[in-house]
């Protein structure tokens, strides 16, 4: 179930990418949306340019340069990139700003009672306090930090393991059966069961959650890479390489992987919010991070319980807003970057 909800999102995106990529690969030439252009825009006479005719075969094309240039042409993506960078930077800067409070420090009033559930803005608490008298502002940033850390780590492990396994799976035909079975088996083992067992053996903590999320996460990535590899492994240029005796390693690293840069970055960008989303779910079913480690998951979950009181709903809205913003940013940046990383879009 758990798996279904969150992996399905990721799988959808994977499949979407999958389809998109294969179509791109199949196409002889990229066809940006020119159909709406007028005849004049589509065709114009090229005047003779003597300087250009003198130019030799030199091209100053640089892949990454072109990618970055293409990316920065997308204003919306740049805007979200800015937001993301600021958010990220702020989670690190925030504890060092003057007047910030410790996210787990409990605040008391004069009579020794906790300053519980203060409304946003009251007594200098920007986002108010929770039921223990802890500063929600500080907790949200600390929680974002934790969640992003979980997201990044899981995404990195997924990328490294997933790419490695995916390439082997796709390129080495003898391993196909093994990996396919492995994938099917893991896909059908309930993630909840694994999480509970891991939490039982280790204690619930950030490394435990990361471990649990990584344990099965890489499989999706591996399958995705494998599908891409299969599409391109028997292309003529690879066939030629093999015939010329290029070592497998070199084929993989020089011929295959560079082809996949755009989709890999896209998937990584999506893996981060999906790991955070998974953490929220895991907290909801009661096996998430302990409360003394703030994370977006347990902040949202605590906020949910307060839904019944309109005055306290802010405790749900704030973490949800932060999580939504992060997800949207990654989604848009990932999409834009994948487009930009496709060399066909560099030709203008």
């Amino acid at each position, binding site marked *: 179930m758990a798996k279904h909800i969150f992996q399905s999102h990721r799988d959808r995106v994977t499949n979407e990418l999958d389809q998109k990529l294969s179509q791109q690969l199949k196409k002889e030439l990229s066809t940006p949306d020119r159909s709406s252009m007028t005849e004049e825009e589509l065709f114009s006479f090229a005047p003779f340019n003597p300087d250009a005719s003198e130019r030799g075969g030199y091209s100053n094309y640089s892949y990454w340069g072109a990618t970055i240039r293409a990316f920065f042409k997308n204003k919306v993506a740049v805007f979200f990139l800015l937001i993301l960078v600021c958010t990220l930077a702020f989670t690190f800067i925030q504890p060092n700003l003057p007047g910030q409070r410790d996210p787990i420090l409990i605040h008391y009033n004069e009579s020794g009672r906790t300053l519980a559930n203060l409304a946003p803005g009251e007594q200098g608490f920007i986002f108010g306090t929770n039921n223990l008298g802890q500063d929600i502002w500080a907790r949200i940033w600390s929680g974002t930090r934790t969640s992003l850390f979980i997201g990044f780590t899981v995404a990195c492990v997924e990328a490294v393991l997933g790419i490695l396994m995916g390439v082997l799976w796709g390129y080495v035909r003898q391993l196909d059966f093994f990996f396919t079975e492995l994938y099917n088996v893991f896909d059908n083992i309930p993630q909840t069961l694994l999480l509970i067992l891991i939490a039982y053996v280790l204690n619930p903590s950030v490394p435990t959650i990361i471990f649990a999320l990584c344990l099965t996460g890489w499989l999706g990535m591996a399958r995705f890479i494998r599908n891409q590899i299969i599409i391109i492994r028997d292309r003529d240029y690879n066939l030629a390489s093999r015939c010329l005796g290029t070592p497998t390693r070199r084929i993989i690293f020089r011929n295959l992987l560079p082809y996949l840069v755009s989709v890999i970055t896209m998937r990584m960008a999506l893996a981060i919010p999906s790991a955070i989303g998974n953490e929220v779910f895991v907290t909801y079913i009661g096996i998430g991070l302990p409360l003394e480690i703030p994370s977006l998951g347990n902040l949202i979950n605590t906020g949910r319980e307060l839904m019944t009181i309109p005055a306290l709903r802010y405790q749900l809205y704030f973490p949800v807003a932060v999580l*939504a913003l992060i997800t949207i940013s990654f989604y848009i940046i990932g999409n834009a970057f994948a487009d930009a990383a496709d060399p066909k879009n560099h030709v203008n």
Partner: protein
Amino acid sequence: MPKYILKRILRSLLTMAIVITVVFSLLRLMPIEGYFENYDKLSQTQIDLGLQQLGLKDPLYKQLWNFGKQLLSGDLGTSIRYRKGVSINTIVAEKAPISLQLGLISLTIALALGLPLGILMSRSTRTRWKIGDKLGTVFIVIIQAVPAAAYHILIQFAGSQGIIHFGDWALKLPMLFKVGDYRTYILPILSLAIGNIAYYAMWLRRYMVDEANKDYIKLARAKGVPGGQISRRHIFRNAMVPLIQYIPNSILFTLMGSLYVESLYSIPGMGGLLVAVIKRQDNTMVLALVVIYSVISILGLLFGDLLMALLDPRITLAKKEAR
């Protein structure tokens, strides 16, 4: 083709056997305390006895063998904790139809709204300001970004508390689901459908835009085929091919229900059943559900592939298999 199907089913059986063995072994690692209600007050004799009666002292292969035999006779077993002594077939037969019914209604709605939205969005990409496309994208992105843990409960409160109101009229639907009272179906179905609407719209738009850029469409346009006809007969139909593959899966997966929605609205369906039985360490039910879900996902993939092969003559299963 029948040969191919047979081969795939046989391979799936192998997968299932492995899955069951692995889950069996994992369940054996669960803390024994979880099998007892008052562990703290039991003597060692009682604990041993309890474990023996649960069959947990038998060797693994013996348990597996028994489970396999029972499974082949169509019996999923008897619950040991969740509803002690009740046949799992009964429990699933009670719960599955409810999830299925709600899921199918919401899926139908999602298709009925999501596909037109996708078409509108893709059409809108051809207009000057692409307003429709932009609005649609905003909707899709927001739905995907707000965590399910939050948006279901927000929908429930928004729909039942009269927060949405115009003058004297306020939207006050019942908070809890009740079988047979159709007013109570509205909110959970909306909750279930909204994610799928976004999902289908997003996909269809993507495929239609890609399709519209293909040369044959351009040719058709150049030849003066009317826009509506191109859209209906060529773009939409071809764009549906990759989508159709996931529809059997979506239909079958409605059986699993949704944990969030079913918890919030008191829907006695399958949602969250797996989580509940894992947490209660009802091993027989965990296994039964794993079997059910494996079958669902295997069948879903198979049907999807078959449908796609039927719809798109360019796709042959033999080739797919080679991949």
